[in-house]
């Protein structure tokens, strides 16, 4: 089962490697990982997608807590949350397909952010499933390059539980 963990960390040098070292050293897996500063520059927020049964997730959560630099771990998969991913796609846009690419991007509420004679760079944000869908639809037209962010997530309603 996939889980999305939101981890607040003291923003110290080497802190990311403490987290990734924990995962590799104990054989837990990381599917994606996203880190950035929070409003408080001394604190970073790391959003991490991992998988495992309940025991594994419990160990991961406890082990993360045990790191001296970790302030808080929330398994946001547990509750109601909004998740977003972003993708930048360089898709071929020849005379025959230019219009179709625009239509597709429009359906996915994406944007064209760069234009050249034979390709567009488009930007799409959304859930993991939506990103997968847009990629699948653009594939036959010709994707030249793709860059994806990891997933970020936030609980709905009030603040962090």
């Amino acid at each position, binding site marked *: 089962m996939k889980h999305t963990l939101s981890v607040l960390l003291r923003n110290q040098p080497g802190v990311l490697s403490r987290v990734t070292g924990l995962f590799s050293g104990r054989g837990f897996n990381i599917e994606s990982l996203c880190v950035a500063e929070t409003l408080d520059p001394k604190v970073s927020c790391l959003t991490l997608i991992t998988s495992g049964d309940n025991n594994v997730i419990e*160990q991961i959560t406890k082990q993360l807590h045990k790191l*001296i630099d970790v302030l808080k771990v929330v398994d946001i998969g547990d509750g109601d949350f909004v998740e977003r991913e972003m993708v930048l796609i360089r898709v071929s846009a020849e005379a025959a397909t230019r219009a179709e690419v625009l239509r597709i991007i429009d359906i996915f509420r994406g944007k064209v952010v760069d234009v050249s004679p034979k390709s567009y760079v488009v930007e799409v944000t959304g859930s993991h499933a939506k990103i997968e869908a847009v990629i699948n639809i653009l594939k036959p037209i010709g994707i030249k390059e793709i860059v994806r962010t990891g997933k970020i997530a936030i609980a709905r309603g009030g603040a962090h539980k």
Partner: protein
Amino acid sequence: MSQITGAQAIVKCLMEEGVSTIFGYPGGAVIDLYDELMSSPQLTHVLVRHEQAAVHAADGYARVTGEVGVALLTSGPGATNGVTGIATAYMDSIPIVILTGQVPTPLIGNDAFQEVDIVGITRPCTKHNYLVNNRNDLVETIREAFYVAKTGRPGPVLVDLPKDIIKADIDFEDRKPIRLQSYQPTYEPHMGQIDKACRLIMEARKPVLYVGGGVILSNASEELRELALKLDIPVTMTLMGLGSFPGSHDLSMGMLGMHGTYTANMAVAECDLLISVGARFDDRVTGKLDTFATNAKIIHVDIDPTSISKNVSVDVPIVSDCRKALTALNNWFNNRQDISIEDEKSKHQQWFEQIKRWQQQHPLTYIEEGEKIKPQYVVEMLDKLTDGEAIVATEVGQHQMWAAQFYQFNSPRRFLTSGGLGTMGYGLPAAIGAKMARPDKVCIDIAGDASIQMNIQEIATAMQYKCPVKVAILNNRFLGMVRQWQELFYEKRYASTTMDFAPDFVALAKAYGAVGLRATRKSEVEDVIREALAVDTFVLMDFEISREEGVFPMVPAGKSTTEMLLV
């Protein structure tokens, strides 16, 4: 607030922490700190002969005193030599602070001479570590390092000190209470859980206390004793827990696990309640997991939440300091006027009789063979001639298990052994550290002929500091423990386990100016030990033991703990 050098500040911090002895080895990166130590007569610096030994000695010091041990190493190779010691302390949750020198901050990352990323290297084997790259953080970091090392589940903490920071002028601020928002260990048990645990104890007819190093680390022996005696609950200890409950007490079943007693392993297999305190269900204890304590409800007390339900799922988890949890359990029973303690005890009477039967059927034993020296006999003699009062360190191998089985540890902080990592070469430096801390105590390193050679250079340290440690080598001219596995599971193919060459240990001891004694027959053993204990200097005893003696009982790796090979 006053301006002093980084080196002076470090020394002041050590004094604040009550440190009186540190173990180390100098080099370019820490030369300024050493210079400062020379004018700090309140601090004894012990110059070891290899940095690994500095860390083991600090570890031994910490294990016998309960205080934080300190090691000081130079950058690069000095620091990497210390890594085995650090990992050893980490696996056994021993509070030590390791100070390492580092190249000056402007050179970090440039592959400078003797530069190594020791913070990166030790990240997975320290509780926490720091690189001080700002002079204003120096004092606070060292204070925090001590705090982290000794609180919660203790462990080694490393502080990497660049040379320019050691030389810098810094402001020394007064000490403030340390509070880390991201690190707040739970000490107090949850009373609801204590209540649940006590109800399970009341229901049990066949309870067992399974206790580990956590009881020793939290100084909970008295409270453990109170609980066990109050309700007549038999106790088994892990290797790390030996001494937390008196080994010679009627309720003690001795050690459990791979080389545990028949009684302890049978009792755990058949108990209906397992009360685990400060132990972590290590594979050497549980054997095959799906057959471990299958009939039992499990209560698990540990200060580290990650230890709970890691290997075995438990019924009543209690995240707490062991001493506080045991006190709470005792109080629960003490405050219940409606419960008759005598009735509670009598519920365990039949169980206790069963345990006695197991003990009679299969006590710890060995076969005597005339004048051949049996290693178990040597340990028994050491026990007898020191009244079971010595501090015993060990190396790793068969001798370690014989020490655990045949020396009766009746109080905590007497048995120093590398349980988690199993580090050969641990014993001699640990014994030196222990003797420095407790000069009033007899300190013995029970060693194998192979392990002793891993840090044998430390005899020089012992001699220099007039540290009269006694070493007892149970010499089988084999890598005995590995040989035993080869004998049992690899058709006696002794691949690289025969020590075809060894020094003359007695002559070697003499070369260091120490006393060397040898026994080749059983009748000589007692005299050798008496003589060793009588002289106030370092003594190395070489016992030529029966070579292919095995350690029994033995649970083969991966088997159920009831599938024991017996003598």
